């Protein structure tokens, strides 16, 4: 089932369009990660999905019913959907009272409430803080309590804005596991934002990438700002680093500007045994800094002055015998490069 | 040339009746004296004099005025004018006092039927007069004593009012005007000075319904006096001007202005100095 359907959705702040989504479907019982640079509209989108802010234009349907942003109708919808803020606010009260709030609002009996609160606090490892004053907690503690407060309510849709940004590593893993688990056991739909791509890939079923308010199809891994290469004759080349000039597929270029941004599809970059004649251009060298297993894909981070990401199958990876610390050679096909905006 | 400015505390009735509005311009014309008028309750006005805040006082509470002079605060009391007190009541006159001359008789009747009576209860000249009248009726009275401390010594202030007055005798502790308003609202009897009554009956946006039911008893006379403050007590006071003002008030000119003052065609005050 489709939970959300967005059509021609826009949000305008002070005459600036910060969100512009022609079409988006969010399906039930899946985990979505929302990636993108700062100020790209992630929080704005979550606020709209959480029915907390009206869009400036466009349509949203929630569970097949069109959403009208009228206070009286939103109330019921908000019972289904919970958003945990990027910098969450805890009420000036104890941690316990904070968790109790949503449950009381839902008229859950005292005994049940107590059980649910304890459960939720255990989940995020904050049971010892039940009676602490919430506004005195540390950054990570705050974030974890905010998560517990939302989890205690078992919503249909769970929206998390950078849920683990201030959480320690140990608890990051725990929280991600919780998200995964409640997604399965309670059939919860989850949308979360993050700047950690590995985290996104590891637990989400689908990654949405926002860039300047628009959804990108191609992913978010290799975005660079570029200038046209003025030395190139007849060819369309762009410079992304003093030493790196790349040939682009002219089909994928929009009208030339002074400065634009390109996106390189990490799946299309392949490592080479050594530089050869077959590929006269777009061959780079770099040192492997990191290799990560991401849901059966292998992600290789190469430092060539700029950091480039290569995404390959395990087979290719093993075959090319890539070790961290190695210097490797790789080829970027012109059609892998796309100019955005 | 220095401005001749005189400060005077007076009771509200002289100001509210409008008398000062005709008196003072004449004064200024004749003598060049400008008067700063501070209108308040008789008690507070006398107090101002004792504290030396003003140069002269213009009040109506003869006994207290005399005491004031005895204690050396004032030099001399000039009898300026008088009007009289009247007993007012609602048109239907439940106590049946209409036409009575004897004020004591009237009050006795009111007490007998326990018809509502509004007392100023503010220790003013009118209130003092009212207490005198109650004493004259011979009905049982109650005494109320307030203790205060003055210079470390206990002092007592005593009031009388009819005994068992409970619901019908209302002491409101306000000025004459407000007392009339309350009496009107409550359809009650009250004692008032004629000047204020005329003002409220004939010169007001919303006239009162009360009528004069008892008048003419000699005991109801209400004399006003002015007293310059004694420069021996307060060296800074402008005794010369105060003296000049008092003299002017009791002069033929001053007295005729008072005699000719009319409100709604009715005379409010009767000059006392020329007779």
């Amino acid at each position: 089932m489709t939970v959300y359907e967005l059509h021609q959705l826009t949000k305008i702040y002070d005459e600036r369009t910060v969100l512009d989504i022609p079409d988006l479907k969010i399906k039930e019982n899946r985990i979505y990660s929302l990636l993108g640079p700062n100020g790209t509209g992630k929080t704005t989108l979550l606020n709209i999905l959480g029915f907390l802010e009206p869009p400036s234009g466009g349509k949203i349907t929630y569970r097949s019913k069109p959403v009208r942003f009228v206070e009286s109708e939103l109330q019921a919808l908000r019972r289904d959907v919970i958003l945990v803020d990027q910098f969450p606010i805890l009420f000036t009260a104890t941690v316990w009272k904070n968790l109790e709030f949503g449950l009381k609002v839902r008229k859950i009996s005292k005994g049940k409430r107590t059980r649910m609160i304890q459960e939720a606090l255990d989940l995020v490892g904050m049971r010892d803080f039940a009676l602490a004053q919430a506004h005195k907690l540390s950054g990570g503690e705050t974030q974890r309590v905010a998560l517990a407060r939302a989890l205690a309510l078992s919503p249909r849709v769970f929206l998390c804005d950078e849920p683990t940004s201030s959480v320690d590593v140990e608890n990051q893993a725990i929280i991600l596991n919780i998200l995964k688990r409640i997604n399965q056991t309670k059939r919860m739909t989850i949308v979360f934002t993050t700047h950690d791509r590995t985290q996104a890939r590891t637990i989400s079923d689908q990654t949405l990438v926002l860039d300047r308010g628009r959804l990108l199809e191609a992913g978010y891994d290799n975005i660079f700002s570029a200038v046209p290469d003025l030395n190139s004759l007849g060819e369309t080349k762009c410079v992304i680093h003093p030493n790196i000039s790349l040939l682009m597929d002219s089909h994928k270029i929009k009208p030339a500007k002074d400065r634009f941004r390109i996106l390189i599809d990490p799946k299309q970059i392949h490592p080479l045994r050594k530089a050869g004649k077959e590929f006269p251009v777009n061959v780079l060298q770099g040192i492997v800094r990191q290799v990560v297993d991401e849901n059966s894909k292998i992600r290789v981070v190469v430092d060539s002055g700029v950091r480039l990401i290569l995404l390959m199958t395990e087979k290719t990876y093993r075959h090319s015998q890539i070790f961290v610390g190695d210097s490797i050679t790789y080829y970027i096909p012109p059609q892998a490069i796309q100019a955005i905006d | 040339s220095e401005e001749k400015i005189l400060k005077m505390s007076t009771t509200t009735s002289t100001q509210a009746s409008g008398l000062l509005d005709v008196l003072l311009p004449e004064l200024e014309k004749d003598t060049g004296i400008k008067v700063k008028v501070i209108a308040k309750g008789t008690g507070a006005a006398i107090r101002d004099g004792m504290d030396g805040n003003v140069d002269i006082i213009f009040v109506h509470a003869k006994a207290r005025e005399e005491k004031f002079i005895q204690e050396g605060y004032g030099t001399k009391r000039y009898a300026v004018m008088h009007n009289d007190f009247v007993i007012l009541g609602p048109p239907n006159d439940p106590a049946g006092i209409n036409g009575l001359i004897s004020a004591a008789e009237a009050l006795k009747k009111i007490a007998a039927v326990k018809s509502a009576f509004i007392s100023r209860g503010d220790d003013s000249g009118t209130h003092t007069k009212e207490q005198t009248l109650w004493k004259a009726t011979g009905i049982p009275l109650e005494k109320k004593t307030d203790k205060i401390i003055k210079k470390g010594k206990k002092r007592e202030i005593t009031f009388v009012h009819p005994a068992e007055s409970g619901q019908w005798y209302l002491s409101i502790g306000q000025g004459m005007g407000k007392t009339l308003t309350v009496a009107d609202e409550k359809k009650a009897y009250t004692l008032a000075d004629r000047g204020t009554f005329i003002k409220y009956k004939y010169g007001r946006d919303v006239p009162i319904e009360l009528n004069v039911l008892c008048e003419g008893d000699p005991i109801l006379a209400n004399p006003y006096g002015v007293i310059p403050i004694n420069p021996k007590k307060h060296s800074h006071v402008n005794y010369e001007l105060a003296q000049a003002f008092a003299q002017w008030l009791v002069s033929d000119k001053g007295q005729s202005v008072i005699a000719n003052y009319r409100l709604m065609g009715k005379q409010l005050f009767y000059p006392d100095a020329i007779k």
Partner: protein
Amino acid sequence: MDLLIDSFISAFFLIFSFDAEMIFIVGVSLKVSIASTLIAGIVGVPAGFMIAFESFPGKRIVITVLNTLLALPTVVIGLFVYTFISRRGIFGPFDLLYTQKAIIIGQVILIIPVVTVFTITAINRIDERYRKTAMTLGANRIQTAWVIFREARFGIIAAIIASFGRVISEVGISMMLGGNIKGFTRTMTTAMALEYDKGAFILSIALGIVLLGISFGMNMLFHFFQGRSRA
């Protein structure tokens, strides 16, 4: 200076004489002030909430008007209420003039703007995210308001305390609408005004000291109930 010392001693005697009249006057003052403050709170706090919460056309004008009404003179309120409740007014038959109820009506009008304006200020200062958080946790409008109220409570309590202070020390309305009738509508302030008019300054100040003492007591009580929740 003597005056002040005398006044303090008199105040002391006044209090410990347990004079029946004195106790009655204090009782009227407290009763009337508490009632006015409560009613104004019940009306003004929600009104302030609504105004701060909702966006509607003319919101800024409403706020400016409320600010203006902070300057409503007691004489105007007194006369205004008077025209309605005097025998000739439309509420004449209820016989309200010169009763404690009349004072309460006037005082409520006096302090509703105070309560409302300061409620608006207190609410405006609360981070928008508290509201958002309450809403996303499923709170309805009233529950959301409650959350904001809790966060803004110190500002609102300050407004209530200020209003109480305003009415218990108020004299114009009490005088005009209550009539300062001994044994019925005489309050501490009208009694003070009376003593002042009589020139009995000592008694007047003594009454004032008693009034401040009572107000202090009320504030301590407030503090006590408020508890250490501030911390």
